[in-house]
């Protein structure tokens, strides 16, 4: 069964410090992975997807198939990055594909 692990419930950093939110997955076949973010009092929204290899709001995530990881990184954290972050691979099979979410990491950026 596909599984996703986010080992940190809370990550607290100072403004300007580098950030790395960890995500490990177990998967058979070629995974399709996403990072979703939920800012305070806002709805959950897509941050980035590995397939497009993009940088959004300064965040990047590289799929490492050898380590089965998809860590989210940003070189210099900003206070507005404070939010809940979820790693989410796609689960294939059944009537339709569906996102399976990790337990989430709360990022708190201190001034």
């Amino acid at each position, binding site marked *: 069964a596909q599984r996703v692990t*986010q080992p940190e*419930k809370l990550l607290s950093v100072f403004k300007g410090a580098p950030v790395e939110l960890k995500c490990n997955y177990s998967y058979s076949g070629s995974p*399709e992975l*996403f990072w979703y973010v939920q800012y305070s009092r806002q*709805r*959950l*929204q*897509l941050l980035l*997807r590995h*397939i*497009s290899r993009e940088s959004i709001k300064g965040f990047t995530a590289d799929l490492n198939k050898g380590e089965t990881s998809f860590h989210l990184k940003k070189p210099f954290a900003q206070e507005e990055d404070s939010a809940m972050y*979820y790693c989410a691979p*796609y689960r294939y099979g*059944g*009537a*339709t*594909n*569906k*996102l*399976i*979410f*990790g*337990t*989430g990491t709360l990022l708190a950026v201190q001034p």
Partner: protein
Amino acid sequence: DVKVTQSSRYLVKRTGEKVFLECVQDMDHENMFWYRQDPGLGLRLIYFSYDVKMKEKGDIPEGYSVSREKKERFSLILESASTNQTSMYLCAIRAGGYYNEQFFGPGTRLTVL
């Protein structure tokens, strides 16, 4: 823009009551999902629907049922609410296309007393 709305932002019910949570989309998307969001547990998939009257269980369907009589509306039903169903409930749709992006509603905070 994709629009996903949920009927209530906050809901308080009593144990044993039948509870309906409604989700409405404004486009013609086939796939709709219900999750519950709990601290430390993340989002867990309850049920999803891939077309009108078509549904499939997610990871935690016990105590829930769903209804999709029209394409734009997907309802989550708690047949007999219990205190352990106190949670944030999120509805989502999956837009078609290459990226498989899911769009979420604002959530319904349900408290069962």
